[in-house]
């Protein structure tokens, strides 16, 4: 059979178009999207401590870069509700404080792990942007709101257990509003703790 260049050309064009179509189709579909809750929903299993930390670290750095580029106007803020202000949350708070977050509010239960008290003292001493408040009773729902845009929600758990959690990047405003309102309501029942009081806080022996 003779070589027909028109046929070859058509075949090549068709193949190129097919490849473009396949690539567009693959990258367009976002398996983490839900129109009711947010643009990127990621599930973290209880064993994925490192993944959870990296996700939040990356988010903080991303927000800082947006702030530097002028895409975010106003202060970067972080709101946190935890059962105990433990090691994992302290790392996130420190990272945020080091990355231009000027308003960090932590609401915690009345008890911490004994070995964390010194860390909390140091943290409150070093970072003036951090406000630490405690509730009379351990809160059941734990979450973080990153600059009124992104959420990190934990599955309810006991103080000595860790369970799965969910990260929601670019959460829907309605969802953010629900958590923001809950945070503000909790704030009414919480009282601020100074670094010296933090040293005298009730604690769990690990």
């Amino acid at each position, binding site marked *: 059979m003779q070589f027909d260049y028109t046929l070859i050309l058509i075949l090549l064009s068709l193949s190129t178009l097919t490849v473009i179509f*396949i690539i567009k189709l693959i*990258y367009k579909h976002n398996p983490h999207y839900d129109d009711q*809750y947010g643009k990127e929903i990621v599930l973290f299993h209880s064993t994925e401590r490192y993944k959870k930390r990296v996700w939040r670290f990356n988010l903080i750095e991303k927000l800082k870069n947006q702030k530097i580029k002028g895409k975010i106007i106003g202060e970067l803020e972080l709101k946190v509700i935890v059962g105990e202000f433990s090691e994992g949350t302290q790392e996130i708070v420190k990272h945020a404080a080091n990355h231009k977050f000027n308003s960090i509010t932590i609401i915690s239960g009345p008890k911490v792990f004994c070995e964390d008290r010194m860390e909390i003292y140091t943290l409150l001493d070093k970072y003036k942007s951090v406000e630490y408040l405690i509730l009379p009773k351990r809160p059941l729902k734990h979450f973080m709101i990153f600059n009124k845009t992104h959420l990190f929600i934990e599955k309810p758990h006991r103080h000595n257990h860790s369970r*799965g*959690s*969910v990260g929601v990047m670019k959460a829907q405003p309605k969802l953010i509003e629900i958590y923001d309102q809950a945070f503000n309501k909790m704030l009414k029942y919480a009282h601020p703790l100074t670094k010296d009081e933090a040293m005298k806080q009730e604690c769990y022996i690990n």
Partner: protein
Amino acid sequence: MDITALIPEFLVLSLAGSSLSIAAYSSFKDRSDDQKLLLIIATLFSFAFLVIFILSATTLNNLTFNQFILTLLFYALIFMAILSIIGFIIQRLRIDQKYKDDELESAIDIIESSMDGLNSSITLFETKEK
């Protein structure tokens, strides 16, 4: 140009492409979309292999009966193997998709259960204060 001269190269190229794509797929851990693309590339290579494989079969001639039977057997086996690889890839794509859908569903469950109890956990403080 004699096409039979090109057949071995084409066979090796398509098979190597398919294996490389699958190897690259296995090395990816997080970027799910990239994984999916690699699986699709592997399928394209596998289909290319099948096309050239069938083409090579059409160029066979002057075979004795025994040679013919053995060649036929060989072709059938290779054909089945490549089809199985394509089947595996498609199955993998489906499982990956299902896994991601399940993860999203579990994540939404966590969000919903967290939202459900939000107000009642605040009411707990209200009643305590009263």
